[in-house]
């Protein structure tokens, strides 16, 4: 299994950051890699099992199913159903923790997936850097205080 782990500190209270990222249909609102998104079959974006269908800036499409959402833990877990990346058993979790010292947030985005060994480094870099890190940096920029 390949693993991706990316984390960052965002300068805003966890509840505030969570309001933005808990929307399973809201990726284009903050993730640079995503353009438009919809939830299939008119489901609500916080209904466990719903599927989001969104486009990547490079034109690819991804379908992901929401496996878990916790307003208590500020966490969201989902799996990929279809994507152009060629990954298997892809499960990712996006989780927020409050940093009480300074009332900030720690954001952690992790994923595990299977792929041919030869492609692992390339995929880890693509997902970790282009998607996750790009997203966390966008959150940092968006929530910069002062």
């Amino acid at each position: 299994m390949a693993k991706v782990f990316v984390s960052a500190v965002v300068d805003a209270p966890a509840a505030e950051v969570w309001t933005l990222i808990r929307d399973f249909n809201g990726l284009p609102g903050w993730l640079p890699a995503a353009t438009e998104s919809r939830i299939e079959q008119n489901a609500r974006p916080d209904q466990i099992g719903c599927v989001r269908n969104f486009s990547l800036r490079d034109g690819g499409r991804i379908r992901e199913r929401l496996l878990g959402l916790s307003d208590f833990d500020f966490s969201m877990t989902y799996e990929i159903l279809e994507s152009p990346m060629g990954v298997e058993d892809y499960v990712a979790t996006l989780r927020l923790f409050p940093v009480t010292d300074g009332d900030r947030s720690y954001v952690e985005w992790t994923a595990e997936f299977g792929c041919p060994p030869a492609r692992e480094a390339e995929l880890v870099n693509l997902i970790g850097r282009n998607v996750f890190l790009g997203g966390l940096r966008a959150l940092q920029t968006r929530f910069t205080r002062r």
Partner: protein
Amino acid sequence: MSRVVRLSESTVIDAPIEAIWPLIRDFNSHATWHPAIAASRIEAGEAGDIVGAVRVFQLGDGSRLREQLIALSDRERQLTYCLLEAPLPLMDYVATMRLRPVTEGGRTFLTWESRFRPPEDQAERLSRLVRDDIYRAGFRALQARFGQAGMGAGPPALAIVPAATPMASTFVPHAEAPAEGGPRSTPGNSPAHWTVLRGGADYVGTAPQDEFVGMGRPVPSAPRSTERFASSGAIEARAIVVPRYGGAEVMEARVVSVPPPGPGEVRIRHTAIGVNFIDIYCRTGFFRLLTPPDVPGMEAAGIVTDAGEGVAHLRPGDRVVYACEPVGAYAEARTMAATLVMPLPDDIDDETAAAIFLKGVSAEFLLHRVHRVEAGETLLIHAAAGGIGMLLCEWASALGCRVIGTVSSEAKAAHAARAGCAEVIVHAREDFVAAVARLTGGRGVDVVYDGVGAETFAGSLKALAERGHLVSFGQASGPVGSSDIGALAAKSATISRPNFGHYTADPVLLRGMAERLFEALRRGVIRPTIDARLPLAEAAEAHRRLESRANIGAIVLIP
């Protein structure tokens, strides 16, 4: 049934998780980094990463607690412990510390959470105490230790900030060195009065406080002193007394009675007194080398005023220096066995001697007796900017060795380089085992001097070349635990575990070591720096400075 209180505090530390976790995962390390902890040890001498281990520790006020490690995970980088004994009613207290890496910026997210069941009427006070004095104070200490200037808001830094790992080594005579650290006490408050320590308090001292405190550096052999010390009976001397184990603030200035020397003894008027970490362990009661009420201190320089019967090597008027048991150096004068009191050459000044004798003699036997270092050998010296580390680096490089030093921060790297390190490894930036392999072309080093202990011991063994020698002379970060001797065969390694007392108890050997040390000082091979000269009455301030690790050089007290 009282309600359960839950606390959750978190912060971000400006250092990679790899630098912080080795410190946190050692259950005995808190004395080295948490300001509330004066001293700590693991019961039964066990290692700090054994689940079930019990740490017994003291706070700055002398109170004693016991806590048990009930879970530890290197995968989650998390440890959980519970309170077994405490002076406060923190019933059912269970706490967890967890580290998570902040990959963006190479920092660490630290959470410290707990639950406990305090009595209803004390819930608020105890919650605040645990949150502020334990968790938040710990956060601040870690941030300071790992070089974080400010905290709180502001965009996260993207640069990886160098971080500290081990602390300066302590070399402790006659005893196992525990983790370093100490209480944070209220600043200031010099002793305001003198009382007499002479069995019962039958005399209230007359020495006015302002005279003593304001004295600064005294005029050597002032007439008044000569008069007082020429006495053949008991004399009175101002001294610092530990009346009970505790923080720096417990130390009191008193007038003590100094008896005339008996057979084999000398009476010494001190001119400069060395301050060492072992004095703090004596004060807190962590080492039972001092039974209150008594005068701390194990290192000083001075002048012999009287010599007892049978003392051949010293006469009244001789300048002397010593570093040995028993305690009693924090005084204007004392009477002690003459055996380990060494004559001080004319060209070595009192303050230098008092500042360096203990560490210098240690460096002498580490480099010349435990291992006889030779020109061309490659040495790895941990905590190279620490007190003894710098001496080792200076001396070994002068002997023609190639010295690789390890330090915890960039700031300390400069000190280590000045002390003669050909290469300096900053722990936070690079794993020292890998760095040694890189610097030696995979060969390893001939000798490792490791006073850090738990955090470095395994790596030190890995860093050895074939037939290399690991000299484990301290355990500032915790005990090294037990090792498999068979594993040494992998490179025919040798391990030494020297004890100060065993190398310095023979006066003939000690004389030779002292002479070599003085010669090294004369030739400028070692260049001790004295950070502060404080009046004896300010011993508490000296301890606070040592405990805060604010100083690089030595501190001496001037009576």
